[in-house]
């Protein structure tokens, strides 16, 4: 089992008037942005990652969003590059680079190769299509989103694996000279993981490629449905998938007392507006969330069947109490969170998990206390559960074949 840490790296600035308020996604001017606050927050979030490694986390999950205060990291490769150099053991799991917004995927292939080498082979390279926000913020054509995702993916894999120079004359990308002077340390290339929230097409595509699938804070039942769809697709494609093919991100905060845990976990919902955090999600912009052609006509129908007509947002726009009730937020002392985490593991059977913590309005101190308690009491116990339940990550069992990886060490010793 692999246990990772995640935070959206939210913007926090009490003097801006943005905290705890509802606002429209992409509707906040960056005149509210104070670079001095930004400087300290960026460094704070990096410090927390270093401490997470010290406390025994196996991995950092990193992401990016654009033009929005709920996620400060607009360039996930920058965070990954710094951690590549400043940490020693933890996997650096980028979930992920937004392929369709890249007009030059060769440059991305080079960056990822550098991160893999500088980290001595700890990179997991996730790729995403990105939501409407990302297309809109970088003016990427939404109607070609899936085509650009698939072509950039094929191109990057080739750039990593096939000696150059060669040409690429594709529909969306053309190069006369592909010969990057940087190749990934992990051969043939770093693992590719694919995060998903709503797209049935993405779940199937991921299973067809035998890549691990990461479900992002979705409710347990639709998550299990998506995992089942993955297993069914794997079967159709002639291989047996297992825990090594599945990962799950969920909100877990641990604190010294039950009262403190409850008080701090409520801060998940009282930071800046975040459409991915129920309670303070603000108004989504419906036009930007459904840009023309961004989601295929077929997929729209499948999604409605799988996740309900409101898709992911239908599962997430709920009060704190409801989320605690259905375990999409787990908070408490180590003693009380462990049985709940165990339930999630038994119900979903993922080989890798990420605790989403330190978000919303949580302070540095809140996060550091939680990380310490996780390291002291939660991670060792969850690791034992993983062994008992035979939950293996993609570093222990090959997600393409289901065979044990001979050279696999304990992910964290």
């Amino acid at each position, binding site marked *: 089992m692999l246990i990772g840490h995640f935070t959206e790296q939210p913007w926090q600035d009490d003097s801006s008037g943005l905290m705890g308020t509802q606002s429209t996604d992409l509707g906040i001017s960056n005149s509210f942005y104070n670079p001095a606050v930004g400087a300290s927050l960026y460094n704070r979030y990096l410090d927390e990652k270093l401490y997470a490694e010290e406390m025994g986390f196996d991995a950092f999950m990193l992401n990016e969003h654009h033009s929005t205060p709920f996620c400060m990291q607009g360039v996930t490769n920058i965070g990954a590059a710094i951690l590549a150099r400043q940490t020693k053991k933890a996997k650096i799991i980028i979930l992920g680079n937004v392929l369709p917004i890249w007009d030059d995927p060769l440059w991305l292939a080079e960056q990822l190769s550098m991160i893999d080498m500088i980290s001595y082979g700890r990179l997991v390279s996730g790729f995403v299509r990105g939501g409407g926000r990302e297309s*809109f913020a970088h*003016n990427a*054509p*939404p*109607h*070609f989103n899936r085509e650009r995702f698939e072509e950039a993916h094929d191109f990057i894999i080739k750039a990593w694996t096939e000696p150059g120079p060669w040409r690429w004359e594709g529909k969306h990308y053309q190069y006369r000279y592909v010969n990057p002077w940087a190749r990934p340390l992990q051969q043939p290339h770093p693992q590719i993981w694919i995060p998903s929230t709503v797209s049935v097409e993405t779940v199937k595509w991921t299973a067809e490629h035998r890549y691990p699938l990461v479900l992002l804070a979705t409710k347990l039942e639709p998550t299990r449905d998506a995992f089942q769809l993955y297993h069914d697709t794997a079967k159709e494609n002639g291989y047996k998938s297992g825990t090594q093919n599945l990962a799950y991100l969920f909100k877990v905060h641990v604190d010294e007392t039950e009262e403190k845990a409850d008080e701090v976990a409520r801060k998940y919902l009282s930071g800046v507006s975040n459409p991915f955090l129920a309670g303070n999600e603000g108004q989504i*912009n*419906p*036009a*930007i969330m459904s*840009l*023309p*052609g961004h989601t295929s006509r077929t997929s729209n129908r499948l999604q409605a069947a799988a996740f309900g007509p409101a898709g992911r947002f239908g599962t997430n726009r709920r009060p704190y109490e409801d989320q605690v009730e259905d375990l999409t937020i787990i908070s408490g002392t180590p003693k009380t969170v462990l049985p709940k985490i165990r339930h999630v593991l038994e119900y979903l059977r993922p080989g890798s998990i990420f605790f989403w913590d330190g978000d919303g309005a949580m302070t540095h101190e809140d996060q550091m206390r939680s990380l310490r308690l996780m390291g002291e009491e939660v991670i060792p116990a969850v690791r034992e559960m993983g062994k008992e339940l035979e939950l293996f990550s993609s570093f222990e069992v090959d997600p393409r074949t289901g065979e044990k990886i001979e050279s696999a060490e304990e992910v964290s010793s």
Partner: protein
Amino acid sequence: MMAVNVGEPVEQELVLANTTVKLKKSGSGDPLLILHSEMGNAGWLKYQQELAKDHTVYMLSHPGCMGSDQPDWIMNMRDLAGWYLQAIEELGITPMNVIGLSFGGWIAAEMAVMSPQTFNKMILVSATGIKPEEGEIFDIFGVTPQVFQQKSFFDPSNTSEYQIVCPDELTEELALEWEYARESTCRVSWRPYMYYPALPNLLNRLKNLETLIVWGSEDEIVPLNSGQIYNRNIQGSRLEVIKNCGHRPEIEKVGEFLKLVKEFL
């Protein structure tokens, strides 16, 4: 030939330029091609009914819009204009008159600069396609279709056909019509948004194409300045501005619109 009722068009599915498309056809007389806007071509409105009294009106669903297939290779406006030239040649109606509405006006202008002899006379209504020197073309993709429709009219409540183009109770059929139209428009207009930088220069080629440019004085979608640039760069063209009118003169000020068009044709 099938008898054509002036009130309602005959709808046909046919293959033009290797693409299955939907054609609406009505009226009798010399052919008149209407190129519809970025919101599709639902309904058969008063301006169409009136024009069909004097002309045989042809209106294709653009490739990718409701009832028409989307050729994969159409990725920019040049592709779309080239497709249209082949399609109407195969229809056998060239040369003819053309009315291009908003995004359809951009298609008409691009077709004209590629093949000026295709049209006898050209009417551009609130046409996109030119980057204004003052103001910007409103971003259709940043708002919902309903908001865009509302913004397209100066006074929706006093526009008799507004409930047809944007009813309070949206039907699933109209929602799909909009979605498909926005999708196919998006393919060729996303970046740069709704214009082609060289079009003003290319328009200089049009020296013998009689052109009428119609604009609403209160157009909040495409600045009047774009119309002025069309007017400046198409030799011999005439710009007519309709007062108290938004982006859809053919619907909002149908009487004044028809008077201008009928006189011109």
